[in-house]
């Protein structure tokens, strides 16, 4: 089961229509106090200072909180306090849906319980890495969710091996696909598999045991695999408090026989994986 937010669940189940969902989300948003308003309430900032920060925001792409500290109006501790206050005072989507009159409280509870039951089928992250590596949480989540998707889509039992760092290239085992995360973490997810694994994923995806070997189809399938696993990684990271977005997947179409290069100033954390069909490697590449 792919992680999703409560509103998407209600929409897919046809409990709310899209106009009702949009109304509830906008109501929920309208109830969120802005950081500037909270800072004024706490007497950390004056209205004039808030206006100055807003003006500065127009010239830069910095966020309100970061600017208020860099302009010397707030201390880090005060910023933390107002962010916590903002988080504690938001209303949940369910409350907004009830406030808009689209469900009553009893109906909301029934739907929330059904949603939680569905989401509980997403197992917790089980991978723990001891080594001190860049973006450790992202690597742990990536390894865990990749193993789970191998199990679910390809019926493959996979086991991870000893991780290593690479700064020049990642050896190509056959076919590779990648996707770039942007946001709180800027990093590239690369999955690199033997042709046998690629073929196995394609067979399971197309539900055809006698699927003819087709390199292009295997690349497409792996690219789709990356799309799905990175969607799951993104959700998990958001749940863990990180803002992440991603670009469409890339396949290394013209580099099939070569190693996958790592740009200067970047480092890859490579985690090998073993399945009954063959080996794969997962790499998370980021700036050193």
């Amino acid at each position, binding site marked *: 089961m*792919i*992680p*999703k*937010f409560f*509103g*998407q669940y209600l*929409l*897919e*189940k*046809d409990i709310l229509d*899209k106009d009702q*969902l*949009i109304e509830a*989300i906008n109501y929920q948003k309208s109830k969120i106090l802005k950081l500037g308003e909270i800072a004024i309430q706490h007497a950390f900032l004056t209205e004039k200072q808030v206006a100055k920060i807003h003006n500065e925001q127009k010239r830069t792409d910095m966020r309100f909180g970061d600017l208020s500290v860099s302009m010397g109006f707030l201390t880090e501790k005060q910023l933390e306090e107002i962010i916590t206050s903002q988080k504690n005072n938001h209303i949940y989507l369910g409350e907004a849906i009830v406030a808009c009159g689209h469900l009553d409280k009893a109906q909301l509870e029934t739907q929330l319980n059904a949603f939680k039951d569905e989401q509980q089928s997403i197992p917790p992250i089980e991978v723990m890495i001891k080594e001190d590596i860049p973006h450790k949480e992202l690597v742990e989540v990536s390894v865990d969710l990749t193993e789970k998707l191998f199990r679910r*889509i390809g019926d493959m039992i996979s086991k991870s091996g000893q991780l290593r760092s690479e700064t020049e290239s990642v050896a190509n085992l056959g076919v590779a696909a990648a996707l770039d995360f942007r946001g709180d973490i800027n990093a590239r997810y690369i999955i690199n598999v033997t042709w046998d694994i690629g073929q196995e994923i*394609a067979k399971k*995806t*197309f539900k055809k045991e006698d699927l003819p070997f087709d390199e*292009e*189809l295997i690349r*497409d*399938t792996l*690219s*789709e695999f990356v*799309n*799905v696993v*990175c*969607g*799951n*990684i*993104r*959700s*998990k990271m*958001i749940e863990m408090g990180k803002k992440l*977005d*991603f*670009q*469409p*997947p890339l396949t290394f179409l013209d580099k099939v026989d070569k190693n996958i290069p790592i740009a200067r100033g970047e480092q890859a954390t490579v985690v090998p994986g073993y399945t009954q069909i063959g080996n794969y490697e997962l790499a998370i590449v980021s700036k050193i």
Partner: protein
Amino acid sequence: MGDSKKILIADDSRVAAHLLTEIVENIEGCEVIDNAVTGEQAIEYYEKYKPDLVTMDLSMPGIGGMEAVKRIIDGDPSAKIIVVSSLGGAQDKLLEALEAGALSVISKPFDEEKAVNVFKKYLGLK
């Protein structure tokens, strides 16, 4: 097939397009008319075929699926577009697509039963 409902699949993944085609063609009275692989092509094919429904992947090359939703709806406010998302519960992106005029969303990997229900609902099929 003259009275069949025409579905345009906008997805750059051959795999996703294949899986969606199988789901659509298992619904009686539905046929897939073409597969667009960029946002620009989705708009071009929409104009060409005037489909009854479009499935739109948000992560596509070119202008992307989100921009294609906006431009198709701009040209034809009655266009029926279902967003296909592998964005893993990204509320902001889905809200943007719904506000732009998309009717609903189906998630990757596909849950066939849910996808069929969504298609039938917006195509007016039982």
